[in-house]
């Protein structure tokens, strides 16, 4: 049985359909164990194709992909897939099985018994924020957001070292999506899997990714770096364009007031230390103020920051 997290390496991975142009072209990148790598790009960028190359739902034309140093081509395809958590946008829960049986799908393939699956599904339901009483329900009785939580629980059930997530929150309304993203990040801090996450939404990529791989049309890698570097030093015009004209503001959203060196307390608009720099700047503009009074979560004053401190 799997466990922990695995390093994933794309080594000149290429997929060509027929004699056409490549869908994924010489993709080379390394995802460190326990990191979330987000594949993002315009449609036709080959992000989903790149993802499916990993569990061989699509076979490589040339190049290689290695998990913990082992080429996926040397592994039995069903064994490979059972060792990888797979989450898709439409979830794909089995409508004829209870939530518990859905979560227990892969453990059952590994020969786990009923008791083990029962305990594991209770544990996972709690982990993804659902009441354990959901175990006996059927997928049609759940909302879209709840189903995707179950999808996540199912992918985690056999404790795989690698997770592939194909636009997992793409079909969910914005408010629930934001909450699922937050909970996914909390979950990831607990389970520390290596994750490849596909999205077309740059904001989701910035929020979720430890590193972001931006693919351009034709499946070529445009830039692979941390969200901060991509926002502050886009490799070229395509990347700058893709991340958006507000990239400076997006970069500010990556940090909070708590990370700044505070000045002595001064009278100003009050903001909590957990406020992002972007929201702090917005607050100053809205209030036409120059100074923010920074407080802790209980409202105690910690110090202050000036507008220039935010922009530095």
């Amino acid at each position, binding site marked *: 049985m799997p466990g922990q997290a695995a390093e994933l390496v794309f080594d000149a991975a290429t997929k060509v359909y027929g004699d056409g142009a490549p869908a994924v072209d010489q993709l080379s990148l390394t995802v460190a164990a326990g990191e979330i790598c987000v594949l993002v790009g315009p449609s036709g960028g080959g992000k989903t194709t790149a993802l499916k190359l990993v*569990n061989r*739902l699509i076979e490589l034309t040339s190049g290689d992909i290695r998990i913990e140093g082992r080429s996926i081509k040397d592994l039995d*395809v*069903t*064994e*490979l*897939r*059972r*060792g*990888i958590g*797979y989450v*898709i*946008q*439409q*979830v*794909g*829960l*089995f*409508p*004829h*099985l209870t939530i518990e049986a859905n979560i227990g*799908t*892969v453990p059952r*393939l590994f020969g786990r018994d009923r008791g083990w699956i029962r305990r594991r599904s209770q544990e996972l339901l709690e982990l993804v924020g659902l009441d354990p009483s959901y175990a006996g329900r*059927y997928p*049609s*009785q*759940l*909302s879209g957001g709840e189903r995707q939580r179950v999808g996540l629980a*199912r992918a985690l059930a056999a404790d795989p070292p690698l997770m*592939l997530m194909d636009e997992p929150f793409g079909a969910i309304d914005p408010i629930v999506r934001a909450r699922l993203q937050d909970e996914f990040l909390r979950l990831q801090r607990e389970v520390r899997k290596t994750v490849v996450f596909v999205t077309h939404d740059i904001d989701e990529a910035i929020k979720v990714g430890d590193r972001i791989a931006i693919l351009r049309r034709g499946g070529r890698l445009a830039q692979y770096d941390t969200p901060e570097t991509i926002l502050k030093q886009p490799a070229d015009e395509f990347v700058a364009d893709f991340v958006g004209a507000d990239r400076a503001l997006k970069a500010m959203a990556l940090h909070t007031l708590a990370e700044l060196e505070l000045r002595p307390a001064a009278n100003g608009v009050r903001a909590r230390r957990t406020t992002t720099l972007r929201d702090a700047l917005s607050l100053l503009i809205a209030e036409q103020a120059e100074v923010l009074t920074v407080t802790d979560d209980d409202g105690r004053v910690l110090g202050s920051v000036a507008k220039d401190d935010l922009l530095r």
Partner: protein
Amino acid sequence: MSVLAAAPVIPNFGQGSACERSTGWFCTDWLDAHWGDTLQPALIQHVELSLIAIGCGFAISFALALLGYRYRLLDVPLGVLSDFLYTIPSLALFQLLVPITGLTVTTVEIALVSYTLLILYRNIVEGLRGVPPDVLEAARGMGFTRTQTFVRVELPLAVPTIVAGLRIATVSTISIATVAALVLPKGLGHPIFIALQQNIFKTEILAAGGLAVALSLFADALLAFTQHLLTPWSRLRA
């Protein structure tokens, strides 16, 4: 009593009740007298004929549907074949088969099985095709083998459509099986034929016909109930 029981012909105008002699609409005394020697055996034969036809029809349709589902190229010719068999009038089909297989149960079963193929083949294929693509992708992505996908995902999800086909096939087989009496003195069609030949004895026609209808309704309800038990998930809507 013993004289009545030995009476060879039904209805017996010489010995029957007043109702029978005047061929009234429905003579309950005839029913009492001939349940044991006429209706009950005919009903049992009818159930046998129908069960064999549906069983064989299902087995053949299932095998063909697997081929048609796996190899799309075969789907069209198989569909056309089962369509074609269904379009032959049952009366004609029975007569066409007699020179080949004679006045036998085989003749009747070949004809009855032919009529189940269209409905069962179509419904099994449609049931399998109706499995949502995201469910299949999830199964594949989680490492199901082809056989596991079929047995654990495709087949269970096709059950409602397959049972729907079985219900229609069963009702139509029970109905068509009455025509089998043209070939064979068996089933509920037989007493109807006899009654038609002998001055149209309404009681016997109504009794045998009514039994055929009741049998259909019962079989249909039984299948519906079985599906209810087999697929608890299909009744749920969020």
